[in-house]
C-alpha cells in the first residue's frame, strides 16, 4: 500500500515537473526574444536622447557665437544636416527600425559635437575680434572727441582774434 502511494507521489511529481517544463519551454522564448529587442529599443532611445542633447548644446553655442558677432551661416548649414539626421532617427524609432535609428542618431551626435566645437572656437574668435574692435573704436572716438575740442578751442581763439582785429579796424576807421 505504501509502495503504491510512493509510486503515485512520484508520478504526480513527474507530472508537475512535465507541466513546468512545458510552461518553461513556452515562456523561455518570450524572455530570450524580448530581451534583445527591448535592449535595442533602449539603445535607440539613449542614442536619440544623446543626439538630441548635443544638438541643443550645439545650437546654444551657435547662438552665443552669433551674439558675439560671428558669422554663423556655415554652422547653421551643418546644424541643418545634423537636424535632418535626428529627424530621421526619430522617424525610424517611431517605425520601430531601431538599428537605423541608432545609426542616424550616432551620426547626428558626431555632427553635433563638431558644430559645438566649431561654434565655441568661432565664439572665442568673435569675442576677441569684438574686444579689439571695441578698443580701437573707443580709442578712435576719444581721439576724435579730443581733436574736435582742441580744434574748436584753437579755432575759437583764432576767430576771436580776427573778430577783435576787425572790430578795432572798424573803431579806428570810425574815429578817423
Amino acid at each position, binding site marked *: 500500500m505504501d509502495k503504491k502511494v510512493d509510486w503515485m507521489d512520484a508520478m504526480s511529481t513527474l507530472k508537475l515537473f512535465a507541466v513546468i517544463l512545458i510552461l518553461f519551454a513556452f515562456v523561455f522564448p518570450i524572455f530570450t526574444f524580448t530581451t534583445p529587442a527591448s535592449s535595442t529599443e533602449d539603445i535607440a532611445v539613449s542614442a536619440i536622447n544623446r543626439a538630441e542633447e548635443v544638438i*541643443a548644446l550645439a*545650437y*546654444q553655442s*551657435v*547662438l552665443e557665437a*552669433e551674439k558675439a558677432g560671428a558669422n*554663423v*551661416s556655415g554652422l*547653421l548649414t551643418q*546644424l*541643418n544636416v545634423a*537636424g*535632418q539626421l*535626428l*529627424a530621421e532617427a*526619430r*522617424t525610424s524609432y*517611431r*517605425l520601430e527600425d531601431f538599428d537605423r535609428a541608432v545609426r542616424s542618431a550616432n551620426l547626428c551626435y558626431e555632427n553635433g559635437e563638431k558644430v559645438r566645437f566649431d561654434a565655441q572656437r568661432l565664439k572665442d574668435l568673435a569675442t576677441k575680434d569684438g574686444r579689439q*574692435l*571695441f578698443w580701437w*573704436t*573707443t580709442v*578712435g*572716438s*576719444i581721439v*576724435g*572727441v579730443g*581733436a*574736435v*575740442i582742441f580744434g*574748436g578751442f584753437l*579755432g*575759437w581763439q583764432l*576767430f*576771436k582774434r580776427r*573778430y577783435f582785429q576787425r572790430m578795432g579796424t572798424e573803431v579806428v576807421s570810425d574815429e578817423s
Partner: protein
Amino acid sequence: MNLEEYRTLFVIGCLIFILAAAAPMLSMVISLPKGSERFSELWVLGPNHMAEDYPFNVTIGGQYNLFVGVGNHMGYSAYYIVYLKFRNRIQPLPDASSSKPSSLPPLYEFRAFVADGATWENPVSFSILEASRRSNSFFIHRICINDVVFSVDSSSNWDSENRGFYYQLFFELWLYNTTSQSFEYHNRFVGIWLNMTRS
C-alpha cells in the same frame, strides 16, 4: 551778430562734431531695442512652387508633391521642428485660441535651423499606398511620405454636404525655447484637404 552769438554757434557746432566723433563708441555701448515685431512664418506651396495646384482629388498609388517652408523673423537664429500630421474630419486640429497643438502623433518631422531674416524650405512627396472602402466609410491603411511608409489606419465617413471622403494633411510649427530648453508649439499650422472619393 555779436561775439556771444558767435560763441553759441561755435559751441553748438563743436557739440555736433563731438557727437559724430563719439557715435561709433556710443553705438557699441548703447543698444537700442529692435522695434519690429518678432514672428515666424509657415507655408505650404503646390508642386510648381506656387500657392496653387495643391493636390486635392487623391487616388491610391498616385504621387503628390508639396513644398513646406519656414520664415524666421525672431531676431535670432531659430531652431524649429515642423511636424507633419494626418487626420480625418473629426480628429483634432491645433487650437489657435489656446495655442495648443493637435493631440495626434506626428507621422514625419523636419528640423530646421534658420538664420534671422532667412527662410527654409523642403519638398514633401506623399502617396496613399493602401486604402479600402466599405459603404459609407473610407479607410486609409498605409501612407508614404518622402519614401518612408507609415501605417495610419484612419477612417473617414462620407461627407454628404461636401460629397466626399475627406482627410487633412497638416504641418505644425514648433520652436526651441532656450530658457526652458524644450520645444514649444509656436501656434502656427497649415494644411491641405484631400478628397479620396475618386480612389
